[in-house]
């Protein structure tokens, strides 16, 4: 790793530690990390929109015939100007007098989106689920084969449980009827079904998060190894002392802040 890369990696290590310091409490180091990442993200987003959206899709765009047209004027697709005008109407928000004009593009955007969503949601969340629920059960292998095979996804029993779970969960989502009596009992089965599903999903996602944590620890470990050239990849031995200087500076920062907080805590206890 060359020296400039090591400097950036040290900065990344600092940001990692600064972000983890939030686990203790809000502190100046977390604030630094937060403001850097938020500022960079805002700037990055603005540039991304400019280069990936405005310039190639509106300012200059190539038409099917291979020609480039400015603002789609005199092109075969002049209607591309309509979203451009709608976008510009959003800028009326800066004027108190004409602010109301910005409601037009917003209304159009949300209205179109809602209209598109209706058949899509109906297809994906209702029709497809309904058809899959209408499956013929595996009667020949109802209890599965082998130990614990009863709950194998291919066993008829599992399929039947899924159908019961679907019906019960749907009943839980009835809003215009009180959940009492038999109806309430079935709704309770429904919420249990949902909770079992959520529990499995929770465990699955936590596993993924732990792997992210391990990855960060490996990064910090690798950075420490690099500082002492433990991996033997430092290209220029003249800089090796500087690598360690940056390591100890960061270590001193962490230890110093921890000591400051401990002293502050002890003093507050005395008073």
């Amino acid at each position, binding site marked *: 790793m060359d020296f400039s890369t090591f400097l950036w990696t040290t900065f990344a290590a600092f940001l990692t530690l600064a*972000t983890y310091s*939030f686990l203790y409490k*809000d502190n100046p180091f977390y*604030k630094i*990390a*937060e403001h850097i*990442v*938020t500022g960079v*993200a*805002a700037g*990055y*987003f603005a540039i991304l929109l400019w280069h990936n959206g405005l310039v190639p899709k509106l300012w200059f765009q190539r038409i*099917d*015939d*291979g*020609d480039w047209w400015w603002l789609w004027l005199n092109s075969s697709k002049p209607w591309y100007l309509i979203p451009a005008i709608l976008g510009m109407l*959003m800028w009326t*928000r800066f004027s108190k007098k004409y602010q109301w004009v910005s*409601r037009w593009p*917003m209304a159009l*955007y*949300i209205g179109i*989106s*809602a209209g*598109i*969503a209706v*058949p899509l*949601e*109906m*297809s994906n969340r*209702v*029709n*497809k689920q*309904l*058809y899959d*629920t*209408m*499956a*013929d*059960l595996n*009667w020949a292998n109802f209890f599965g084969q082998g130990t614990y095979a009863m709950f194998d996804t291919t066993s008829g029993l599992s399929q039947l449980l899924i*159908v019961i779970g*679907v*019906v019960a969960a*749907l*009943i839980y*989502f*009835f*809003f*215009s*009827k009180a*959940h009492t009596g038999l109806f309430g009992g079935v709704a309770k089965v429904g919420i249990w079904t*949902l*909770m079992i*599903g*959520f*529990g499995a*999903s*929770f465990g699955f*996602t936590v596993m993924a998060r732990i792997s992210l944590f391990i990855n960060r620890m490996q990064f910090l470990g690798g950075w420490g190894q690099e500082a002492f050239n433990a991996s033997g990849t430092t290209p220029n031995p003249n800089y090796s002392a500087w690598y360690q200087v940056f390591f100890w500076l960061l270590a001193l920062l962490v230890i110093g802040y921890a000591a400051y907080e401990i002293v502050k805590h002890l003093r507050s206890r005395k008073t």
Partner: protein
Amino acid sequence: MKLKLFVVSLVVLLSFSIAFAQEDTLTVPPIPPDSALLPAAVTGLVAKDTDNDHGHAITLKWQPSADDGAGRQSVAMYEVFRWVPDLMTRIPALRDTLEYLKLRTGDGWSPPEPGSRTDSIHNVFASLDDAQLEERKESLEQTISQAIRDLPAAHAAYPEDGDWQQVAVAPAGSATAADVGTKEKDTPDYLPDYSDFYYRVDAVTADPAIRTASEIVGPVQSYGQWFNKGRLAVSVFVLIFGLLTIFFVQHARRGADLYVRPMAGIEAVDDAIGRATEMGRPILYVLGLGTADMIATIASFTILGRVARRVAEYQTKLIVPAYEPVVMAVAQEVVKTAYYDAGRPDDYDEDIVFFVTSLQFAYVAAVNGLMLRELPATNVYMGKFFAESLLLAETGAVAGSIQIAGTDEIAQIPFFIVACDYTLIGEELYAASAYLGREPILLGSLKAQDWAKAGVIALAVAGLALSNLAVAYDWSWASSIVDFFRVVD
């Protein structure tokens, strides 16, 4: 005499030399495969436009070869060939040249690697100056455009100036294949609609040289359909649901008292606003990471309106950090309207709703910092959430806030359940807006949803029974009824 002898000798020598020369240049003709080894051809080949699509695709069906899985069992696969005019095969090469000319006339041009494809094009144009290159580029662009326009006519000229090209492969045992192109004219897979296509299918053995071609079918044209019949069930469902909604909205408008069961999460909203007022702390409302076109975000706007109105009445502070600019603009309108409705337009501040950033974890870092510095009494998370859900909810719990969450993102609901005081699960988020608003339109649609759910339950149970009976008793009519509900995209 000597002359005659000389001429005769010369002729004989010449004859020998020609004969030997011919023997040298003679190529051994390929040995035709033993006809006994050739597989039987596929029969009944039919090619037609692929149904329920936007065009640019042809579906082929055939009866498998007699030697596929039977007879000599020698068929390994089927290769589908389409007759392609030379014009179509020339277009990619023209495009390569055009790309080269664009690079050459643009910024940052550097000579290509020797021996590469671009290098071979470069050798042709190396001596041209910029003006000539620009001229060639414009001319080439027009040539390509014209070539694309001429494709239907070139296809109509079958079998002149063209050749067969393999367009699909199907394993042995198959009886169908699709030749799927794109509608993008500037891609190599472009398949022009309303052009005459001709197809044949080869039954191929393990030795690719041993194959038998089918009869040629055509002409067949691809074209798009206005309606996708595979989604008929969706349109029927949308229609029924729309009628139910209209009926119940009218019912509610006539003054019918439509019951909505209490939801703890929503009932807690008013209490939480009261708590914030008593404590003199703000209320943090997070709209999630969804864009303004997402249903969860739209539902969240309704709830935000209600919360903002109560906040205005109680004169409490509201903080709404936005993730997306359009969401911010809509949220500002919603909050402003709520303050006007509450009769406190002067209390409205543009900075109640503010933009943070559109990067997920940068947004989380900012909102988490905000929570620990402002210490809001109540955090409301309503909308679309992703991996940031637990990070936000955990920090809110650490800050000692009452937390109410609602999302339709199933993977994130568990995190809200463990870290928040109240959670609206999935559709409860949509119902919450109706419950809070008590407006006839929302209440009517909620009632319609319940009826639709009842219908879905009835259909699921009936369909399950029919499906199983169809298998047990071989009832094809029952299978047809179940198949009606299948959605083909």
